[in-house]
């Protein structure tokens, strides 16, 4: 397979391939964090997660259009505003959905799965009615396009780097929020012992709503980031859903670190296999390996062994 290439060429390829794995990793992290927070905290499987992402993407699309028409001078920076908007719009919708739907279903996790699937159908069709069935093209500011040439062979895509930075910031932000803030303390208290948390005066319903909104908001940021590397169409969100769930489940439901480790493992495995096999087979093998490991270790990678 490597016949006829110089060692420097091979080095470059491996560097590039490592980078490819890393950018897949950041995609997975962005996708899975929101889901993991919701799943870990509330045991809710949000099948509409992909649609929340796409809402973020459409928000970015609209923002870009707005800047092009009214503030062309500031176009270079619209993306940051779009991300913030995407976060808040998705979070607001998330809170609404929590209030209307999810909170009635906390004791029935499998039912949340079905209800949110219904929600995802409705959201998809709503996008189709509003934005049309076709994917929309999101214009990016000039500085985000292109690549930084490192050597002759190695180019680092700027938007890939940017997605990585976003993924890292979101991950760090979530970590700080969950483990270093009063909110996080309350969240963990509710996860561990809801009645007790309520007894000491934590508004658990409020915590749930905030958490669901946070998860959806992160999906929104992910959606904004994905406009740079993926497609924005009514059903684009569906493409991510299985991968995302597997990342979360594989990581161990209540562990954010687990989610990140699992995202790393799956992305590296997939991108390595993609290099040696065809894309389809790489995907199949990755999924099978993950399913296989989950069968051996159903609690996921990082779940704590606890007395139950």
């Amino acid at each position, binding site marked *: 397979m490597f016949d006829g290439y110089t060692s420097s060429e091979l080095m470059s390829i491996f560097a590039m391939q490592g980078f490819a794995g890393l950018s897949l990793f950041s995609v997975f992290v962005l996708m899975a964090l929101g889901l993991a927070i919701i799943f870990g905290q509330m045991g809710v499987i949000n099948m509409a997660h992909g649609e929340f992402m796409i809402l973020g993407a459409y928000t970015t699309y609209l923002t870009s259009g707005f800047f092009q028409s009214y503030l062309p001078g500031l176009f270079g920076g619209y993306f940051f505003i779009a991300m913030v908007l995407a976060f808040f719009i998705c979070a607001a919708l998330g809170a609404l959905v929590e209030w209307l739907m999810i909170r009635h279903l906390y004791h029935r996790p499998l039912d949340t799965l079905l209800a949110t699937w219904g929600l995802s159908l409705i959201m998809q069709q709503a996008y189709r009615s509003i934005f049309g069935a076709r994917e929309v093209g999101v214009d990016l500011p000039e500085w985000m396009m292109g690549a930084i040439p490192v050597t002759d062979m190695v180019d680092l895509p700027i938007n890939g780097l940017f997605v990585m930075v976003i993924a890292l910031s979101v991950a760090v932000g979530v970590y700080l929020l969950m483990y270093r803030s009063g909110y996080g303390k309350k969240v963990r208290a509710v996860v561990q012992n809801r009645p007790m948390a309520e007894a000491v005066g934590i508004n658990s319903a409020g915590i749930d709503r905030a958490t669901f909104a946070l998860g959806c908001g992160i999906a929104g940021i992910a959606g904004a980031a994905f406009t740079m590397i993926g497609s924005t169409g009514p059903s684009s969100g569906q493409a991510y859903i299985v991968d995302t769930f597997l990342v979360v489940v594989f990581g161990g439901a209540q562990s954010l670190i687990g989610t990140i480790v699992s995202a790393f493992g799956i992305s590296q495995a997939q991108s390595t296999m993609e290099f040696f096999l065809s894309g389809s087979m790489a995907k199949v093998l990755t999924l099978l390996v993950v399913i296989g490991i989950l069968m051996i270790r159903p609690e996921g990678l990082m779940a704590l*062994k606890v007395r139950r």
Partner: protein
Amino acid sequence: MSIAKSKSGDFLLAVEGLTVSFDGFKAVDDLSFYLDPKEIRVIIGPNGAGKTTVLDLICGKTKATSGSIKFAGKELTKLKEHQIVHSGVGRKFQTPSVFEDLTVFENLEVSYPQGHSVIGALAFKRDAAVIEAVEDVAKTIFLTEALHEPAALLSHGQKQWLEIGMLLIQKPDLLMLDEPVAGMSVAERKKTAELLRVITKDHTVLVIEHDMQFVGDIADRVTVMHQGKVLSEGSIDHVKSDPKVIEVYLGH
């Protein structure tokens, strides 16, 4: 202590060197104790002493890290839960867990030791023997009147009895009861003690209990656990006067 009697075949249950650790925390630590046939043994101890974990280990709910549990000569640590049940160990949980949707009769019928395989459950017929066994047990657990009520309508105490009844109909050699009188009225406690005395005519019983009055009423011997280990063992009066026990319960 009875370590000297180790490996003897007289015991119904011999727990030796039992240890289980959860992420480094040893909930049960090198625990050994022995039950004679037809004995009523009560395990007491402060919260977190590992009492419930011991029952979990014996019935297979939790897998031991090391050590052995011999029951009537059989090693239990290697068996699955249902196999442990089939070898004659019945377990009642702390909170009553009965099938609320089913009637008392059906609850007992489900526990009747026949038709436990998939095929068996498909072929199972409610014959005279089943009905007789169910009615027998129902009488023992004071639920004859309520036989065709759904279990959801029973009082808390009645549910506890029903669960004991569900164990009885399995005809186990060893019954393990986790806090059987918790949340019961005084009258119900009395009746439960009475029930346990009836049961011990044919069974060995291992009970976890906090209520010292009740313990005194029923126990042949008492094992006191602390931090996963046996702190003291003997008659109720013996352990009550054991300074180590007093230290643990009254000290700190």
